[in-house]
């Protein structure tokens, strides 16, 4: 690891100023690994964990659920005020040790797990190189949907759940603050955009907010792993909907591990919207979710998984 300078601000204002020239560090469960692997080498880090304003999870009357960016996954997992789908997603991430350290903000902004990206020796396209090694290489864990220049898959467990709840993220930059839909934090890396995230330079995520209306939704998070715990999703799905009088509305279906960004399965949502969810509708939605899938050499099984998880998640909403 290269030597780096570390700043430890106590206030958001200070952090905001420091972040102009430094890389934010929270739990460090992703960034430190990238630094040890030689993939990231920031000369300056700004440790956000001393900034009290970034902490705390609370229900605010009429304004939904506010989740500070520094809330640990372990806190979210236990938070009774948090929607079920979010708690399930948190509880299925990583390990108890990592969940005790990793933060909501860090989980949303973690880099992808592509093994070519994470090996310093491969000058892959996303790191500024000329080609994607995974596209015709070992790509069992990579994307089946929405691929442009990079075939890596979105790794976050929280992102699909938050997007299914129409959550928004608050960002502070050097001059301005803004809020965006959590979904809009992500993009498929493509020509001219070698990044999975849309943050502007020096922006920090300060909080995530689940709107009041979404708190009434039922939700479920299903995650298929290669072992029983401590694995990134082969495919995951967050499903949420209002269930009222035997009908589902505001259906959201968001896939993880299937595309370079958390993937809204909009066709599948349309199939399910307004129906009394039954086996037939759920199966049709599953089919719709993968209608545009384009598998690579080693990941066609993800189509089967995505179809099946969408079907199951929808049925779970109404049982």
């Amino acid at each position, binding site marked *: 690891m290269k030597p780096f300078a570390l700043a430890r601000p106590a206030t958001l204002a200070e952090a905001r100023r420091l972040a102009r020239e430094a890389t934010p560090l929270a739990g460090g469960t992703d960034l430190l690994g990238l630094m040890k692997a030689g993939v990231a080498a920031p000369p300056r880090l700004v440790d956000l964990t001393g900034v009290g304003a970034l902490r705390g999870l609370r229900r605010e009357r009429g304004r939904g659920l506010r989740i500070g960016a520094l809330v640990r996954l372990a806190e979210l997992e236990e938070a009774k005020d948090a929607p079920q789908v979010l708690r399930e997603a948190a509880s299925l991430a990583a390990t108890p040790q990592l969940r005790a350290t990793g933060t909501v903000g860090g989980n949303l902004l973690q880099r992808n797990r592509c093994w070519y990206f994470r090996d310093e*020796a491969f000058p892959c396209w996303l790191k500024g190189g000329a080609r994607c090694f995974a596209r015709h290489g070992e790509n069992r864990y990579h994307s089946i949907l929405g691929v442009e220049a990079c075939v890596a898959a979105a790794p976050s467990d929280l992102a699909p759940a938050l997007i299914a709840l129409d959550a928004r993220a608050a960002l502070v930059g050097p001059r301005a603050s803004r809020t965006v839909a959590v979904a809009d934090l992500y993009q498929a890396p493509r020509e001219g955009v070698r990044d999975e995230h849309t943050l502007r330079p020096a922006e920090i995520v300060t909080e995530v907010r689940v709107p009041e209306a979404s708190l009434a939704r039922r939700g479920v998070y299903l995650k*298929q792993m290669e072992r029983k715990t401590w694995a990134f999703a082969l495919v995951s799905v967050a499903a949420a909907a209002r269930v009222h009088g035997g009908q589902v509305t505001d259906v959201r279906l968001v896939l993880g591990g299937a595309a370079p960004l958390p993937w809204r399965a909009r066709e599948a949502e349309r199939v399910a919207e307004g129906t009394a969810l039954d086996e037939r509708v759920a199966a049709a939605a599953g089919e719709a979710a993968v209608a545009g899938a384009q598998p690579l050499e080693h*990941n066609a099984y993800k189509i*089967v*998984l995505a179809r099946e998880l969408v079907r*199951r998640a929808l049925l779970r909403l109404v049982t």
Partner: protein
Amino acid sequence: MSPRVVRTRVEFEGEINDELSIIDGRDLPAWRGALDVVGARTPRVDGVARVTGRARYTQDVVLPGMLHARFLRSPYARARVLKVDASRALAIPGVHDVIHRTNAPKAAFRGEETIFRDEVRFAGDEVAAVAAVSDEALRDALRALVVEYEVLPHVADLEEALRDDAPRLEEKGNVSDSGKQDRGDVRKALAQCEHVLEATYRTSTQLHNCLESHSAVAHWDGDRLTVWESTQHVFGVREGLRAALRLPLSRIRVLCEHMGGGFGSKGGVGKYTIAASILAMRTGRPVRFVLDREEENLAAGNRSATLQKVRIGLRRGRIHAILHSSWSNAGQGRWVADPTGPTNSLYDLPDLKTRSYRVVTNAGSLSAFRAPGYVEGTFALESAIEELADRAGIDPLQLRLRHLAKKDPLSGYAYSDKRLRECYEIGAREIGWKARKRGGAPGSTPDRRRGIGMASQIWGGGGGPPAYATVHLNPDGTVVARCGSQDIGTGTRTVLAQICAQELGVDVDAVRVELGDTDSPYGPTSAGSLTVASVGPAMRAAAADARAQLLGTAAGILEVTAKELRVERGHIVSKGTRTPIKEIFDQLQNYTVIGKGSRFPNPERIAIKTFGAQFAQVEVDLGTGEIFVEHIVAVHDIGRVVNPLTAASQVQGGIVQALGFALTEERVVDRGTGRVLNADLEAYKVPTVRDVPRITVRFLDTPDRRANSTGAKGLGEPPMIPTAAAVANAVANATGVPMRATPMTPARVLAALGAR
């Protein structure tokens, strides 16, 4: 009686060798009757030291002025090293030395003259070694080394290396013969069969991932070399250092007090050991050389990936013929473990043809890995047998019983003991085999099916000479027992203390066992499931010798004949009087009793084997391909069980490691570059505690009195052998689809289900 030389058969890792052995005196008769210390559940004598951190492992050794060392490793799968320029690295403050191809002294290593080759042959091959005062300086130095390579064409994948257009890595090609067996006429026999199953099996490369990585600390005092090493064989390391450095054995001492696992990968000297020693001799400072996790998974050994083809035929309800061919990815290894071993020796099969091939590739070398070859081979053999039986509508257990071998098919010798039939009976009862139906049963949810499957185990484990021990009886009645064996983590120290205490007549607590020191009497490698069966009898003989001396002494003091005396729980007992050993010695000042013992040869014309059977119950999610192992029943026949507690741990550990092989573990190599893509414990998936099912462990626990004087055989490897096949058979039973590749990931299960 003076010492004499005899020939004896010793089985090691599936290979049977005739070895010369020196015997002195007469072996003890096997134990008869009930024993109180041997056979008792005994907590590990070093358990507290291990869990409190008091136990000193190699990586805990810190010496004054110690330097740290690391290798620069090749980024290329195959290349010629044209030039190494160390000038910039040596200019970094704190960097003491760099050795490489042109400046390192010659050092013989596995048939080559140097540890740094002109041609590097896998991504991770050693190019240079650096010694520096800190890890930071080391890493800077490694980045500052300038190496010119001429990159050469490579092939890292087993099946690609078999192709005609693959780069030729050895003069005679990439494939070489490594084992064959012929019995009867297979071609003719297959033509007569009513059912013939033809199947291809694939197993993936499994990485050892010992908790403690490979490591050595070398200290050179100008005359003597002392090396602390995490090793399964301190004497093997000493011999390796002798050959590499050309020092007399008297000037090399190798120590391994505690170690964090080896599983076959720490069988002898490593390049890092030799490099640490050379650097220590050149710098005059102690050198600590510890591989990190990535290096472990690039260059510290593995279980070869295999491609296996089986043709097996049934006629009139019996297996009439079997043809089994196997290709193993040796990487740069010079041998391969033979996966056809179980096929050759497990069943009574009249017409058989097996072939085993070593395939060389530009990948890290294999090393022994807990039942090397047998884990892979049993997966193919036992899967094929169960599938064939189901096809023919025969109960797979019944089919196996029809071929129960009454004598060793390879040698024709009778077994010293064999209770495989009882293993089957107990296991079948525990798992509920009678309820097994072709096609499985409904699972706990509509998406799941449930199935059960089984597999048999054969392995050596008989041990043999040479092995020696000494037993020093202190004046206070306590005991120091010594052997140059080592405790690989299985509880060797505890089991030897029990054997010593039992024979000598003292409490286990009174015995301290000193292992892992080449200044002790020779102990064999902690491998091949041979420690208890080899060192145990030597320890027992040493204790018996000490007891005889003690009784002779006590008889003189007590003025009775030795025959009237016996030792019981630290006391000399004679016609109702009990005298503590200490009181006898009080009259003798510092008189020390030194008992010595050796392992006697194995019986002639007898095959010594361990047997077992495992049964698995699983559920399979047909929609996601996920396997849920619910229950494993393991029944093993290993002769006498010295310590039921550590023995059960062995079985549980073996099964967990086998479940990794079966379900989650697979080294992934990028074909374009030959680089390992998952050389870390996040991407390379060993089982977690959530992956461990209910495990029922049963032993027959009947002493094998013909095997050796303790009646005990080895257990290190047997529990790992049948698990994958039992799980695969259970999955096949649940789904109706054979599983012919490991690990059985959701992707592979879905592919198999999709091909229905």
